[in-house]
Each structure stands twice: as C-alpha cells, then as structure tokens.
C-alpha cells in the first residue's frame, strides 16, 4: 500500500507514509485549512486569556531574502510560514482542525526550516527559542494533547534539544454564561527533556540560508500513546513519555487538531516554515 501511495503522487516519495492519507498539504495551492489559533471568548474578545490573544495568521511564504532573493520551498515556491511578532517570548500558533474516523496508528511527517527575520548581519542562531507541534485529540473518555518542541535557545543560551510536555495548566471560566472554559496549555512551564533528545540541526551560518529538515511522529490513537519521534537521521523512542490528559469535554468528540508553533527568544520576529505536512494512518 505504501508503494501504491507513492506511485499515485510522486511527491509522496519524499515521505514514508502509512496506508491512508488523512491530510497532505504542500502549500503550493493555498493554506488548505490552516488558520490562526485563538483562545475561547464570550461576549468580547477581551475575555480571551492574555497569551491566546495574538497567535498570528498563517502566511503563504516564498521565503524571499534581502540579499539573495527567493529561497522558495523544498517543492515549488510556497510554504506555510508561522511568524511571531518582534517580541521576546511571543508565540505564533497555527492550527488545522479535522476529526478522526478510526482509532488507528497515525504518522505525522513534515519538512520544515526556521530562521529569525534577517534584520541583523550576525549569526543569529539564538534568536529562535523553539519550534514545535501538538495534537489536540478527544475520544469517548478523555482529551489528550501530545506536545513536542525543539528547544533551540533559552534566554540567549543554545539548548538544541527535543522536549515534551505532560503538565496541565488550570482551566479558567470564560465570560458569564458558565459554558466556556480555557486553559493555556502552551505556557512556558512544564516542558521536560526527551531522553536522548539532544540534536544539533543545520542552522547554516547566516540568517538568509535555509536547510529543510525531515520530521516524523508516530502516535497511536487507539492506545493514546506515543511511539517514535524522528528528525533527520535521529530517532527517539517515546513509548515511556507521558501525555497531557484531561477528562472528555462536552463538544470535542473525535477531535483531531494539529498545531505548529514557534517562540521568539529575543525582540525579533522568528519564522517557522513548513514545506509540506502529511498525516497518514494504518488501515
């Protein structure tokens, strides 16, 4: 079946897909349902929890540089650009929302790169705090939120390691109707190192050179557990890694949300680019 998929669409030859495609977005024909994550609100936008108020709209980027012009994507011209404001600690968060029809083993694959805005003629390899992704899933019993990030730099010190998060943030009531709550699951607290998760990625010397990286995560929707994380040639076993687990919520049945995010480590815009995102599952 894998080979059949690769024959149907040659772009899939760059991936190692499972049997059935749940989503395949290469961003050369639009944003394909990717949008900005916003916190819940009631009656007024002022009721959105502060960290959720400004997660920035996704952009279709040609990655065009002041010194050498357009980088383009791994394939074609456009990639999804997740872009922060020029503010230390700011998070840009973009999301695609679908539902699952089978509790299967699923595989996320993507090609990505990240850089700060090329506003300085210096190395700038410590400007991006992190790039990461998460799923927001719910079955009959519980809501489960796998969170993974690559911590590149923290407070100006290179960290270069993969982390996960299982610590929950408290729910807060939103508005006055008693029907809406919100929790800031992307808070800076509670990130833990993935064992053996140190990895030096190719930054490549200056802010205007971009190298694409391969990412893969295997996750079991039936057991609600991680299998493996892969970035380039590094493979990390996640079978003992904990998850953010919450009792099922009233209107999220069969939810399968996928989120990509980035965080700035200085007062400078940082950009997380996705050439393509592929989610497949076992039949």
């Amino acid at each position, binding site marked *: 079946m894998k080979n059949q998929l690769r024959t149907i669409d040659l772009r899939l030859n760059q991936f190692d897909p499972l049997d059935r495609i749940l989503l395949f977005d290469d961003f050369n024909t639009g944003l394909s349902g990717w949008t900005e994550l916003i916190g819940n609100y009631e009656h007024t936008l002022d009721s959105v929890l502060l960290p959720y108020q400004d997660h920035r*709209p996704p952009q279709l980027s040609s990655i*065009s540089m002041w010194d050498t012009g357009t980088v383009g994507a791994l394939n074609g011209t456009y990639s999804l650009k997740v872009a922060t404001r020029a503010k230390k600690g700011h998070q840009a968060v973009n999301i695609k929302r679908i539902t699952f029809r089978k509790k299967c083993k699923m595989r996320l694959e993507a090609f990505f790169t990240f850089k700060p805005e090329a506003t300085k003629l210096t190395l700038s390899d410590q400007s991006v705090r992190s790039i990461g992704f998460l799923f927001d899933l719910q079955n009959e019993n519980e809501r489960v939120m796998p969170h993974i990030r690559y911590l590149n730099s923290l407070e100006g010190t290179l960290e270069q390691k993969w982390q996960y998060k299982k610590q929950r943030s408290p729910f807060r009531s939103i508005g006055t109707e008693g029907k809406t709550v919100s929790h800031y699951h992307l808070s800076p607290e509670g990130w833990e190192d993935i064992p053996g998760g140190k990895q030096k990625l190719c930054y490549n010397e200056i802010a205007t050179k971009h190298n694409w990286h391969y990412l893969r995560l295997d996750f079991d929707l039936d057991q609600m557990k991680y299998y493996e994380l892969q970035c380039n040639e590094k493979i990390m076993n996640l079978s003992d890694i904990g998850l953010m687990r919450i009792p099922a919520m009233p209107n999220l049945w069969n939810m399968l949300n996928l989120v990509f995010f980035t965080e700035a480590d200085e007062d400078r815009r940082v950009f997380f680019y996705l050439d393509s995102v592929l989610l497949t599952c076992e039949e």
Partner: protein
Amino acid sequence: MGSMRQYYSAVVERNVVFEEIFHSEPYEVGWATELIIFVRSLDGAGDGAVEVEISPDGIRWCKEGTTFELPTATDAVTFGKVSHFGNWVRLSGRTKKKFKALITFSMKE
C-alpha cells in the same frame, strides 16, 4: 494555483489599541494580485488616516500611495484597495484619538 481563483482573509491585527503613529505587522501577499485592507473599530473613534506600504524584503518600507481614513465610530469599517504590490504589505497610520481595531487583509489571486 488552478482555474478557480484563490482567496484568503488574514486578520493581521485583532483587538489592538492604536494611538499616535502605528504600523501593522507585515504580511506576505506575493501569491495574490488583489488586496483590500479593512480597518474596523472595535471600540472608539479613530481620528486620522492610514497609508499602505510595500517592501522588497519585509524589513524596509516604502509608501505605496494608497491612503484612507480611519473609522470614526465603534463598529464602523473603512477600506483601501491595492494591486501590484509585490510580496510584502503593511499598513502605517496616524491617529489623534486612541481606538481599538481589527485589521483584515482580504486577498485574491
């Protein structure tokens, strides 16, 4: 991008208080040929105008020439139409009165 023209709407600023001189975040619009920028007041009356700016690199900015007035009442909307803008656009403005706004970039291939 195919026979049916692509459309995308980006809320480039939301629930942001503007006063005196301000700039929106830059946005990449290279795939589009038409752009309408809407400014909606969420609270208060602006008093001034905005100018569309374009850029070769998203860092250095020039005036594109399009200007329009700010909304002068809560929930009022004003707009400017732009075409032939290259890859980066932002909005630059000046207001004598503080107001809270939502800025939408409405793009078509």
